[in-house]
């Protein structure tokens, strides 16, 4: 009898230890620090600017295998852990210092858009299957609710107790963050999809761009369209909002800035070839940085859209760049990861990763997190930080 009791205890401990490897828990998940990255690009304006000052060169601190590929969004950072969503539907947590896995959980069929952390919960959009959004309680490590709906391939946005997702049929749906109940929904257009990340503009407005080039500014309070425009070309990449301008890239060689209050075109940059797919832009408040399938990294003046410099790289640049202080970090599909000078475009540091880089980057005080094919999360830090 005693032996059997011990057997049961051991078995329970074993099961517990195994299952704890497969869950995600945080001690104080309601507390969000300044350095945390609760959403793709850290902020829902998606400017991809971090004031952090990193000293180059960087060196690799650790590498982690997440077992599957990644969508275009950046990793999340929360309480000294990295959260990575994969296209296999899993969210992995990694210790930022050591690179050791701290648990993972399958929360969706496929995750394409980055999850979001708010109010102690992690909200995960699903790009396939019957669930559109899953809410996961980060304190107790269990699913809190699941909301059925049309797949969502973009990051979701948290707004005043609601999580808002834009699905592949261009419906905007708001779910109660606490309960998952459907709050409101409306359709932007028929037979079009949204693949570009929605951008929160100011306190109450949401900018959405469709793959057919229709763009909308929505008033989330009134749940109505403030203005809409047709930009003349498909939008697939994450736009950004900076200083009154909404900047977006198209698949037909253009980058344009729209006035956030009216939607009027402030400027438009046209590359030489309409075949060029422009990547997601980043902004430091003065300039726009954008990669493209022609391998060019361009710096455009934020006010005028004029080219300030261009750097030609060897391979396609599809990942969103990240401005970190005076450096511009960007990865290519040729496995190269660069740091450029924002001012001059000179290469200041460069390294080669194991696979193509097609996702955005996350930034810490001392380093950057890069996602590369086929399944790697790599953390580069300043040399002194790694000692």
């Amino acid at each position, binding site marked *: 009898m005693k032996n059997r009791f011990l057997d049961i205890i051991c078995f329970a401990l074993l099961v517990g230890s195994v299952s704890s490897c497969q869950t995600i828990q945080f001690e104080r998940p309601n507390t969000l620090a300044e350095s945390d990255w609760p959403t793709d690009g850290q902020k829902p304006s998606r400017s991809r600017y971090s004031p952090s000052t990193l000293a180059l060169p960087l060196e690799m601190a650790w590498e982690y295998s997440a077992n599957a590929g990644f969508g275009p969004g950046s990793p999340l950072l929360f309480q000294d852990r990295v959260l990575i969503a994969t296209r296999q539907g899993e969210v992995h947590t990694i210790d930022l210092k050591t690179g050791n896995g701290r648990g993972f959980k399958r929360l969706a069929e496929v995750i394409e858009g980055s999850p979001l952390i708010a109010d102690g919960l992690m909200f995960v959009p699903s790009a396939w299957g019957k669930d559109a959004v899953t809410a996961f309680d980060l304190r107790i490590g269990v699913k809190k609710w699941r909301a059925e709906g049309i797949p969502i391939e973009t990051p979701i946005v948290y707004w005043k107790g609601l999580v808002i997702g834009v699905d592949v049929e261009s419906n905007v749906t708001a779910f109660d963050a606490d309960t998952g109940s459907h709050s409101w929904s409306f359709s932007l257009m028929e037979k079009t999809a949204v693949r570009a990340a929605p951008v929160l503009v100011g306190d109450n407005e949401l900018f959405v761009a469709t793959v057919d080039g229709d763009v909308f500014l929505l008033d989330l309070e009134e749940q109505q369209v403030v203005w809409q425009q047709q930009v003349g070309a498909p939008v697939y990449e994450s736009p950004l909002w900076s200083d009154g301008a909404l900047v977006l890239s198209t698949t037909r060689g253009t980058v344009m800035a729209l006035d956030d209050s009216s939607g009027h075109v402030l400027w438009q940059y046209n590359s030489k070839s309409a075949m060029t797919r422009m990547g997601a832009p980043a902004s430091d408040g003065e300039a726009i940085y954008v990669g493209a399938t022609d391998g060019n990294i361009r710096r455009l003046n934020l006010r005028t859209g004029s080219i300030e410099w261009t750097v030609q790289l060897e391979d396609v640049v599809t990942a969103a760049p990240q401005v970190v202080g005076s450096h511009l970090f960007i990865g290519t599909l040729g496995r190269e990861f660069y740091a450029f000078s924002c001012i001059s475009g000179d290469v200041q540091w460069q390294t080669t990763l194991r696979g*193509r880089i097609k996702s955005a980057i996350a930034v810490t005080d001392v380093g950057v997190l890069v996602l590369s094919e086929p399944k790697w999360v790599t953390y580069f830090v300043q040399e002194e930080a790694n000692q």
Partner: protein
Amino acid sequence: MEMSTFNIPVASYLAGAHSNPMLRISAFLPGVLFVLVALLLPAVPSWAQLGYHFGRNKIQYEDFEWQVMKTEHFEIYYYPEMQELAEHGAFFAEEAYRDLEHKFNFSLNRRVPLIFYSSNLHFKQTNVTPGFIPDGVGGFYEWLKGRVVIPANGNLHRFRRVVRHEMVHVFTFNKVIRVMRDHRRTTERFLPLWLTEGLAEYWSGPPDHQHEMIMRDALFTNYLVPLESMYRINGSFIMYKQGEALCRFFAEEYGEEKLLDLLEGAWKDRDFRIVIATTFQEEFSVISQKFQDWLKEQYYPELSDVELPSIIAGGLSTEGFSAKPNFYRFNSGERRVYFVGNLNGLSNVYSLPVDQNYSPLGEPEILIKGERNDEFESFHLFESRISVSGSGSLAFVTKSGGQDVIHVYDLEADKLTETHRFKDLVAVYSPSWNPDGSRVVFTAITQSGFSDLYVFDVESKELQQLTADTYDDRDPAWSPDGTHIAFSSDRTALGQKGAYNLFTYGLNDGQIRYVTYGDRVDFSPTWSPDGGDLAFVSSVRDDEGRYSAQDIWVADMSADASRGGSLANNDRADSTGAPTWKAMEQLTKLVSAAYDPVWTADNRLIFTSFEGLSFSIRQLDDVPKRLERPKKVQPTDLATVGTSWRYDSIALGEDAETGTYKRKYQLDIAQGSVSQNPVLGTTGGAVMAFSDMLGDDYLYLTILNTGSGTRSFLRDLSFQVARFKLNRRANIGYGAYRYSGRRYDVTDPDAPTEFPLFQETVYGGFGAISYPLSKFARLELTTSLNWTSKDINIRNVERDALLLSNSISLVRDNALYWMNGPIGGWRGSLTAGYTTDVLYANVSYYTVMADIRKYVRITQDITFASWAMARINEGREARLFVLGGSWDLRGFRWFDVRGQKMWFTSHELRFPILKAPSIMFPVLAPFGVASLRGTLFFDAAHAWNTDYYDIRPEIRAGETVGAAGIGFRLNLFGAFVFRYDIGRRYRDGFKEQDKVFRQFFFGWDF
């Protein structure tokens, strides 16, 4: 003959070829799987004793001195003679790469190996794929090593397009594999073939005239396949074109970016219809309907205006494939039309008697039998015209050995008189006689890969090159007065866009002059009897870039209006200064296409029509009257001619590194396997296969173990190393092995009859040479030296021997294959060998084997097949031959009939039951039911050892046994054939009926 069971794949590998014409241009997997299966089945008794197998030969005629050019994204394999072409190809490849990076939003992380050949004849020799490559294959992508293999054909525009097409495949494959792996989906799920090929066509350039021809014909003669049924045309030419049309429809209707979305969404579901529906956000049935509507919108407005060739032109040969016509009026007054065709599975030159109105007086008769022997190995069915001189000399081209030759057949004397082979010319097309039959002009491609015009004097044997440039000059036609040669060429400024116009070459001054000009594709000129007109076929591109049907046009060549026309110089526009206008008159407005018109002496045009996916010979009468009412008159405005084009290239040494090709092995497959056998227990093993980039050199490492426990692990460990070299005409193989373990061998004369299981250890090596005498015949030599130690406990036999085995085989095979096996031709082999124990004299026997199979085509679908075989092993410890099973002596179990000597015969009447079941019953399509055929069969055999009549019932020796019955053959997916036979067995020379049997298995007909 004593050979290791390891040698099972040797002979088949060295022959390196298949007879199956159903070559799929897709992934290539080396024959390593045969090796693995064979090695893990030691129970399979000496197939090697057969020492031969059938199949045609893929011959390395050329000793290519391969070089490698490294550009930014490619490793280009080429040979020095074609360096200029390779430099163009390198440029095309980099150009395509830059474009496709945008379309796929993707970069490749490794250089892509591109293997170029300067002509189709060289391309057919490639070892990158083991099978035969038929005419019409423009290139292929092999995914195992990521190789792209592309032949040139004299046309740089076409070469550029094929490079782009194959690069789309490279990008598609790599992109989709990445998408699948990102989502942790299995990669065997891939895109439907119509999408991969359609996308490759669509993204390689605008639709060409062939695309329009096929789409018009499909729509108007009603064989267009709806989107949901595209699988039914999998692998066909129509699939390519309809796939291209689908991609264009998707792009126009839903947006170009959606094509990439389809690829990026491939992970969503195994059923690609769901991927399509979710990508386009419409019901699949709605999308399919929209496609039909889109097609109708494009083509139906023309419907009221077009003519069917079958309505407006009299039919001469309308069955099968008939093309490239010509005619002759004999001295006796008899008229005949000649053409190249394939009416029953093999290509021939046909002769058709006609009356004065060119109505057929009978069925076409075969004049020259092709594809059965080395002399007329194959015709260029789609490319090469035939010509008949005024005195009745028929000139035609066939492949013969490593190059094309021109044959001359005297029609009056009814015999072949000459065959002309040209040392430096690889491919030859479309000969045309001069008026007195003393010279012939033709197009030829040299090792450089560029096509030019040549004139050959049949008497003096002098060869003169007329053009020497990078333009594609083709379809020459000698004028009736002998002063000019009309030809088609892409040497105009529009040639870079794929346009071909007509020119004349002046034999008096060597000048080339324009005849036609414009954004059109003008081919196959033919002179009117008086030389005043030039008929040709043309497809005209409109302002929106769409090609018209390929119609018959006539250009006015009379007087100075044409003869004194503008010079076509390479580097500058019209040198005479004065533009010249010619009238071109459109004679027909066809549904789809006319080809290769020939103007008869009595003013008819005999031509090839394309209608209902069929090529037929037809004739238009009274051409002068038709010229009075042409469909359209269009002047040729030569004032607008520009300078001719030049394609860019990447120069060696400047933009690309180069070096000699060094053979390096790369791993192709590493595979392990475990098998459970009721007799031998568990067997486990692994095989690794390596080959070089060009597929010329293979290395196999195999290891397996049949041990039953730890102690026997080393004792029963077997391994083999084998190498096969295929880069020369003679294919060579050699290897060494150790085999040890329990062996179940029914052919061993010492093994117990009922349960021939014993322990044997063999150390040895083998060598083999397969020398192709021609495509159809080869000589095979094999030798092996084996130290063998055999232990048969139950019989108290312990025998050691050092066995030397040598054999020689002569094999010939020109059988024509179809769904379930051969349907025509014949195959045979003769083998002689000797095996001796050089150490202990325990073994010494000779072997003689003869095997002949003949297939008589009674009708298109019914074949009578006969097989006769005799085998003798005579001497000490001579092995037994075996028969029995579904593949030879039906009704008897495998290996039931054994003897050191035997004869066997089998006869079958093969007939169709359901020819295209998936089309008649679409529900069968997902199961891959490709054909259902039946057979009435009769088998008989007699095996014996010493005495012919010494009956040994345990091995059924000493009496004639056999079977007769009916069988069914079901072909699945074009790859597997299931066999089911029902019949009755007979014994004692067919005097005694034995039981009724039912036998099920798989495998091709003999």
